[in-house]
């Protein structure tokens, strides 16, 4: 059974390699091969994941499957195996990654059908799946890091997929670089941990067993450094700037990055290290605070964007902030639950947006849309469901997961964080319905020849809409008459704080109220007619320009680095280091010239040298004789 874990990871990699080779060798005559190989890989991995999940469901909560593929690096103390593990947390991740991944693959087969580089796309896509599965299934943090970096690589490849446009590559490079900054924190954390544990077996299990022997300040350091990694991958302040630009990739890529994979890696990592973060709750509070700021910040920006994909991108960042609030405050299962529900509605939103974009011949500005509900009925209905879900309207999935997070924030006594999160809930409803109303209602434009969307693109939307509507029912808590099934299945060591049912009802009511206020505002402002915002006041233009953070980074980091580089090259290396060398050379030359002058072949000069020599020697002899 455990060997299945190897196949879950290996199949996407193999199919990626196969498709890559076929594509490169030019046997790319028909799409069918790529479609089948491309979709089959996540499908098979998904089936195997279901087996694994079934096995874990039937056994007790602490059963963990292990399998070792081969020894990777073995050096004295340092012994790292390519090994995989699966517990219930892994099973949940596996389920939605492969399930939603497969749907996105099917959708992509429709979306990309006219693209020349169809095979390349699916090769990269499966590489992405494989990397993510490697990250999730890793038995030790080093292998997790490998998956972590490979996810960065595949996102680089996919964001820069349309490489003829240099702008896209800029976005890809930005994503790769910012992820590397995070990865650096991650790998340093692992080194600190490894050396602190004195090289005992470095698997998650043994770290968990030995964590008690470590100093709290050291654990705090490791926790912070790991979170730096999460900031990069999961786009939190201050390393988030790559995420909005990552929209440069094809829309299925955005769906994959934002919903099922990549950005959820950071949340998963914190949950995976829950035993470590439970030792240092103050680090967790910091994480929650960063999450709350990111959530609010991104929601504010999203409210003023005009690009449909950018709105969704900032909304992802904002929702990730919620997840970090949860895992930071120790409500790991609520955090993962939100990851789970978010995967459904965010994938749906992106794929719906992709359908709109395709229908309008690659128009992304929402203010050039409007009234589309008559033309794209199915897309409209499904996106409506997703919007309800993300805004937290019961009984759609987002309500339950978001409510659990807000309740956890309130119960833990971090009222500042709770207030920010509640405010964000209102903004979420506002910007999401703003988008929905502008795109599908508002004053319609005249559209000519809207193409019929292929089935490949529409029926995944329906499946996801069902998921977005009902996935939340898996984790209904006691207050709403459920049994908290999700949390008890995933069995993470939550630091739970009890709330009375009355308090939960009141919080839930407040959330719904906030969401309704947001919706109402959006309806009033945008449902009938919509005008593109103009940055006429200081605040408006500040928000519209995303608080000028990109410009700030550019000035502060990129240009400084560039300047230092040019200075190092032109001044220090050329004039300084080489200059000193040339100084030696010219000194040598001068000395040579001097000696040539001395040796001029004229006898009278030589006689002079002899005389001088004798004089010096006589003086020396005189000196020594006197001393005697």
């Amino acid at each position: 059974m455990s060997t299945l874990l190897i196949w879950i990871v290996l199949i996407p990699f193999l199919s990626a390699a196969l498709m890559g080779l076929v594509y490169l060798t030019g046997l790319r005559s028909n799409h069918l091969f790529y479609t089948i190989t491309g979709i089959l890989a996540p499908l098979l991995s998904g089936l195997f994941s279901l087996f694994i999940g079934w096995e874990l469901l039937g056994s007790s909560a602490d059963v963990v499957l292990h399998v070792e593929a081969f020894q990777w690096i073995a050096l004295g103390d340092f012994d790292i195996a390519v090994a995989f593990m699966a517990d219930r947390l892994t099973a949940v991740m596996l389920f939605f990654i492969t399930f939603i991944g497969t749907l996105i693959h099917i959708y992509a087969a429709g979306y990309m059908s006219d693209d020349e580089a169809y095979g390349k796309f699916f090769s990269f896509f499966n590489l992405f799946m494989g990397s993510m599965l490697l990250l999730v299934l890793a038995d030790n943090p080093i292998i997790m890091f490998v998956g972590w970096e490979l996810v960065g690589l595949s996102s680089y490849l996919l964001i820069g997929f349309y490489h003829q446009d240099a702008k896209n590559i800029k976005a890809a490079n930005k994503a790769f670089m910012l992820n590397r900054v995070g990865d650096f924190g991650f790998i340093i954390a692992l080194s600190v941990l490894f050396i602190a544990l004195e090289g005992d077996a470095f698997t998650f299990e043994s770290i968990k067993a030995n964590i008690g022997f470590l100093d709290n300040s050291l654990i705090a350091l490791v926790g912070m450094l790991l979170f730096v990694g999460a900031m990069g991958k999961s786009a939190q302040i201050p390393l988030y700037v790559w995420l909005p630009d990552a929209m440069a990739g094809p829309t299925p890529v955005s769906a994959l990055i934002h919903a099922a994979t990549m950005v959820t890696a950071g949340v998963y990592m914190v949950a995976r290290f829950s035993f470590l973060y439970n030792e240092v709750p103050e680090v967790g509070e910091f994480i929650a605070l960063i999450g709350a700021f990111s959530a609010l910040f991104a929601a504010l920006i999203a409210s003023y964007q005009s690009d449909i994909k950018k709105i969704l991108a900032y909304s992802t960042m904002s929702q990730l902030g919620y997840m970090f609030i949860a895992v930071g405050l120790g409500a790991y299962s609520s955090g993962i639950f939100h990851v789970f529900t978010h995967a459904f509605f965010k994938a749906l939103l992106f794929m719906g947006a992709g359908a709109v974009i395709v229908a309008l011949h690659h128009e992304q500005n929402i203010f050039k849309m409007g009234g589309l509900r008559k033309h794209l009925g199915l897309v409209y209905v499904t996106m409506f469901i997703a919007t309800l879900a993300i805004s937290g309207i019961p009984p759609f999935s987002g309500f339950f997961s978001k409510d659990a997070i807000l309740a956890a924030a309130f119960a833990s006594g971090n009222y500042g964080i709770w207030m920010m999160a509640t405010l964000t809930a209102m903004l979420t409803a506002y910007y999401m319905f703003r988008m929905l109303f502008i795109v599908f209602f508002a004053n319609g434009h005249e559209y000519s020849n809207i193409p019929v969307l292929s089935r490949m693109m529409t029926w995944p939307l329906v499946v996801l809409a069902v998921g977005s509507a009902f996935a939340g029912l898996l984790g209904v808590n006691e207050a709403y008459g459920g049994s908290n099934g999700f949390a008890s299945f995933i069995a993470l060591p939550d630091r739970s704080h009890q709330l009375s049912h009355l308090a939960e009802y009141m919080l839930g009511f407040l959330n719904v109220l906030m969401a309704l206020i947001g919706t109402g505002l959006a309806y009033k402002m945008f449902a009938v007619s919509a005008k593109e915002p103009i940055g006429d006041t200081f605040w408006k233009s500040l928000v519209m320009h995303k608080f000028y953070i990109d410009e700030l980074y550019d000035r502060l980091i990129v240009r400084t680095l560039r300047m230092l580089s040019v200075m190092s090259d032109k001044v220090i290396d050329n004039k300084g280091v080489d200059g000193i060398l040339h100084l030696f050379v010219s000194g040598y030359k001068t000395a040579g010239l001097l000696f040539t002058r001395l040796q001029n072949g004229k006898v009278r000069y030589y006689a002079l040298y002899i005389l001088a020599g004798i004089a010096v020697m006589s003086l020396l002899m005189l000196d020594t004789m006197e001393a005697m």
Partner: protein
Amino acid sequence: MLDNILSILIFFPALAAMFGFVVAKDSIRAYGVTVAAIEFALSLFLWYAYDPAVSGMQFMESLPLIPAFGISYLLGVDGISLFIIVLAAFFTLIGIASLPDMKRMKDMILTLLFLQMTMIGVFAALDAIVFYVFWELSLVPMLYIIGAWGGPLRIYASVKFFLYTFTGSLVMLVGMLFMAYFYHQATGTWSFSILEWYRLILPENIQLWLFVAFFLGFAIKVPMFPFHTWLPYAHGQAPTIGSVILAAILLKMGTYAFVRFSLPLFPDASVFFMMPIAVLAIIMIIYTAMVAYAQEDIKQVVAYSSVSHMGVIILGTFALNVEGISGSVFLMIAHGVVSGALFLLVGVIYERRHTKMMSEFGGLASVMPHYATIFGVMVMASVGLPLTINFVGEFLSLLGFYQQSHMMTLLAGIAIIVGAIYMLAAFKKVFFGEVTNEKNRNLPDVNKRELVALIPLVIIAIWLGVYPKPVLGPINNSVESIVQLMHEKAVTEEAKARIPDLTSTIVINEAKEETK
């Protein structure tokens, strides 16, 4: 044959080069490829016959040359030198096989074969004088390659290369003579055998002086900051094949010599100079990475990036523990594969367009997809992505040094980030965007001759990244014995503390096994 395999490996190419003078011009490539292929097969056989469980020297050969001074022709390989020898044979083979048509083809191939003799000689020699002879001899063919086939500044570049490295080597020679003298003082007999020298325990002050003398020779070869300024010129002017061999093999002589000479001979001095050298290494990593970022010539980017990564090798070496040294030896192989491949790749477009300026290119990914793919793989290997060959070495080197100093390692780690910046920026400039220059519109993709060289490198770069064990295992065994030797030889308390005692960990491990 096994008894003399090292001698065969050293002298077969030189002998073949002699015979090569009478080979007809149009069959010289076939001749060169055949010779290099036989040599490579021999080196693979050496690897096959090598016993990875033994940590000491294998295939030793000994022949007294000047018995009065204890100079003998002494050869042997261990896990540290084995793979560099295989790599040298491999690069000579693919170098000759992928050689573009050029003037004086025959001279080039014969020079390369002669160069191969000196390279393998350096890594197989266990006698300081034999080592020195091969070390200096290697300058001659390289000088010829740069001087005869180089770019417009080739004379300046080759003279700078020669004088700079030669000066360093002379100081190293003086150091060797003194070392032999001290050996004579202590034992009453003369010997230049490195293995004999290993047994000699020197007082710390003598170690310091000798260390500096050796250091100068090695550091210029590596080249370490601030002795690196000869390298950009050498790379800038050298033909592709010259840069490939220089980056892949010749520079490794310096780092190899640190492991072979400096560490085991002068353990206390190594500890004494650990921090200053680490500072130099870190300056070298970050500073050259930044200089690389400022370059406009793609070959200079690769050249400076090659220097930058050599800094990580130095850092790992001077971690003075098993992780660090094994990592750095592994990184020597990795660096050889990756920077060798990058120079070959730069040669591909240079040959098509006769320019290396990045501003002349752009959008090549659409025109030459295979080329872009291979280049991309190597760029990713160069920035140290996991599951590529560089990651294993870099990670182990940094992990090793982390045990000596946290702050320094953090600083070095910044190079990981800066490294990605300049590589990705260069990759973007050359390959992505629209094809802006009409001359690039119809460039042919990589041809079969080039693929013969590049595909094996891609395979190695990924294979050893995914499964490094076949190489890492033998390296580890030999490095362990060196670290143990250093620990036992160390005189000062600090050195004893800094260099781990492996016997104790082995005892602990055994105790653990028993309790289980």
